[in-house]
């Protein structure tokens, strides 16, 4: 292992290099660009042996990755925001084709209005595309996730594409000290891709075919089972990872002081670090606050959420996302988890950080303050003026 001072993008690129992808096809977009630049450098200096394809669009980036995956090659791409939306047609295509492609998405606001800064509306708008969705908190987790994502996507019982999300700028451009594993360790962790879901000269196949009403549901059900199997595959990958690299992760969610917490804030991505600080501060004041970080949105950690919050008096979901005309999508999903578990806990939704708007520690504290009245509300952070941001 070597310590390096890396940004989130660079850390992810190092992780990708360790995974030895055979084909990389990507199109630059802020704030993802550094990942593809870094990988280009790795290919140039010979430290990464991969076909690097300079595609002319994001649609082609993923279409090309699917072509590579369809012949059994390990494929990687990366995008963000408008780019993710431009390749949207290919997302369910890759998932339905069960191509275990890994893609990094730098979470960024979507136009209009134009904005290059971070929120999570881009990836969350694609939750139903059939991709695994994970959200990293820091650069170390980004690197580790890059490596683990291939293991999980390519797992025999999964065979599903993986979208690893990094908050734009806040994570992609922030430098931290990162442990970079050796190639030997990485090779021990990640076997080469083995799949029958491919065209080959030895065993010719017809792929990506049509399936009519008689069989379509069965194909879709099997796709669903594949992504549900991610839960076990993540556990397996993390056990293996800890054994080889000595760092441990906690599956689809990460609980912080939730065991005895009265009030729990559920969130995802890089904001979790600040929430953790606020929880510590409140704990010092004797207030029982907790944090539940969602590391994965697909598959959705229904059981983990119910288990973590079952003794809480009230919970809130803080997310950088809004499903216009309703509420934050993560909140909708969390409520479904509570309902299925028979939990009737007051649950509120705080929508913040849109277009890169800063979420302050004070705002997080005030969320915990508001939770004490134990009722449900949907609020926008950062509206200002006379409008409190309450949804009417």
């Amino acid at each position: 292992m070597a310590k390096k001072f890396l940004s989130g993008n660079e850390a992810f690129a190092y992780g990708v290099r360790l995974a030895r992808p055979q084909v990389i096809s990507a199109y630059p977009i802020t704030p993802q660009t550094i990942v593809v630049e870094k990988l280009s450098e790795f290919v140039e200096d010979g430290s990464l042996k991969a076909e690097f394809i300079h595609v002319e669009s994001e649609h082609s980036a993923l279409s090309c990755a699917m072509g590579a995956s369809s012949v059994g090659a390990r494929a990687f791409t990366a995008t963000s925001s408008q780019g993710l939306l431009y390749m949207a047609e290919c997302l369910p295509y890759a998932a339905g084709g069960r191509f275990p492609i890994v893609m990094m998405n730098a979470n960024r606001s979507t136009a209009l209005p134009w904005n290059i800064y971070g929120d999570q509306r881009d990836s969350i708008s694609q939750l139903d595309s059939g991709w695994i969705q994970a959200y990293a908190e820091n650069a170390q987790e980004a690197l580790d996730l890059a490596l683990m994502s291939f293991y999980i996507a390519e797992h025999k019982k999964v065979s599903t594409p993986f979208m690893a999300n990094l908050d734009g700028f806040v994570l992609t451009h922030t430098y931290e000290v990162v442990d970079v594993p050796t190639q030997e360790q990485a090779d021990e962790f990640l076997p080469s891709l083995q799949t029958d879901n491919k065209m080959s000269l030895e065993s010719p196949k017809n792929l990506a075919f049509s399936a009519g009403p008689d069989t379509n549901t069965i194909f879709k059900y099997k796709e669903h089972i594949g992504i549900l199997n991610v839960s076990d595959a993540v556990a397996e990958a993390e056990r293996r990872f800890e054994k080889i690299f000595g760092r441990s992760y906690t599956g689809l969610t990460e609980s912080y002081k939730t065991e005895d917490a009265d009030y729990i804030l559920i969130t995802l991505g890089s904001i979790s670090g600040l929430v953790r600080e606020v929880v510590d501060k409140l704990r010092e004041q004797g207030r029982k606050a907790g944090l539940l970080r969602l590391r994965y949105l697909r598959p959705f950690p229904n059981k983990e959420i119910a288990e973590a919050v079952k003794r809480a008096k009230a919970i809130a979901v803080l997310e950088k996302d809004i499903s216009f005309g309703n509420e934050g999508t993560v909140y909708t999903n969390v409520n479904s988890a509570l309902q299925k578990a028979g939990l009737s806990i007051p649950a509120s939704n705080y929508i913040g950080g849109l277009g890169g708007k800063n979420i302050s520690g004070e705002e997080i504290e005030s969320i915990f303050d508001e939770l004490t009245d134990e009722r449900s509300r949907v609020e926008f952070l950062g509206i200002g003026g006379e409008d409190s941001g309450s949804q009417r």
Partner: protein
Amino acid sequence: MKPYLREKIPAGFEDIPDTTSYEAGFLVTKNAGWRNVRPVVDTDKCVGCLNCYLYCPDGVIFKKDGKVAVDYDFCKGCGVCKKICKIGAIEMEAEK
């Protein structure tokens, strides 16, 4: 490999693959029912020039004993072969 008719049609849950990937050239239905006329080769006239074989959109005309024959399981009766045959060795006959 030439696609060919299979005996067992994958239908139930277990038979359906986990992915959209399956053995190449797997046929379960014929096209014979599409036809209301069928090409009939007069082997006495046929000189084996193979033009009909070359131009058949379905590839159902094959070489046989220096001449040609038709796979009626998959012929759709389009009539391209009759038109292309310069010596008039192919006639289209009504299907009964």
